[in-house]
């Protein structure tokens, strides 16, 4: 785990050395805050299973909400009135 389970932090890059150490002796999986660049680093260190959420699944990061509509003008702002 690159972050505490169930949290949504960014991956802790210091864990990469752990991946390298483990992968030297056994199949190794990585999980938690894995982005595409971190995935590439993990694979380079020997990880054989890469779990990703927000960085992989588009449904996890829906398009930004549209900008809020301008507040309705009140009578005090109706300078366009005669």
């Amino acid at each position, binding site marked *: 785990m690159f972050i505490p389970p169930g949290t949504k932090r960014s991956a802790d890059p210091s864990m990469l050395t752990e991946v390298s150490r483990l992968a030297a002796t056994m199949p190794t*999986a990585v999980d938690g805050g894995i982005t595409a660049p971190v995935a590439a680093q993990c*694979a380079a260190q020997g990880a054989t299973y890469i779990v990703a959420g927000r960085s992989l*699944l588009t449904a996890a990061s829906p398009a930004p909400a549209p900008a809020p509509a301008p507040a309705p003008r009140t009578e005090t702002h109706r300078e366009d009135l005669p």
Partner: protein
Amino acid sequence: MTAAVHEPLRDWYRAYPPFTVGGSLYAVPPAHRAATAAALAERDCRVHVDIIVDAAGRGLGVSRHELDRARALAPGARIDLHLIVADALPAAATAEIVGATVATAARLGVEAVTMDLARIERCPTATTRSTGPASRSGWSTPPGRASRNFPPASTDPW
């Protein structure tokens, strides 16, 4: 006018051999989880399922119902479960949840169940009956965590 095609996965996974990358269903809203599992399976990605249980025994992660729907929609998916249990949950309750999770895993043909090694050691009744190899998929976790196959349990409170 044509509708935009919605691609459920960002394409960086294509840089890796099939089944090297897994998508975590917990990252997507519950209504998208089954369809996401199917999309992952169609693209030769694994399906990772976080089961999160708080100190009161409540499920906060992917629910069993969502997992059932994911399996129904993606019968060939390579699914693995990650069981995350609150430290404060009593050992007996933890053991029961481990057993239920293992039973669900066996029922649904899940490849592996992963949980913190400390939790495994706290619930020996749920783990000492293990008879299989460490993991069918063979993947492992950093120190302090472990991946094991467990036998089915008789209770299923999850």
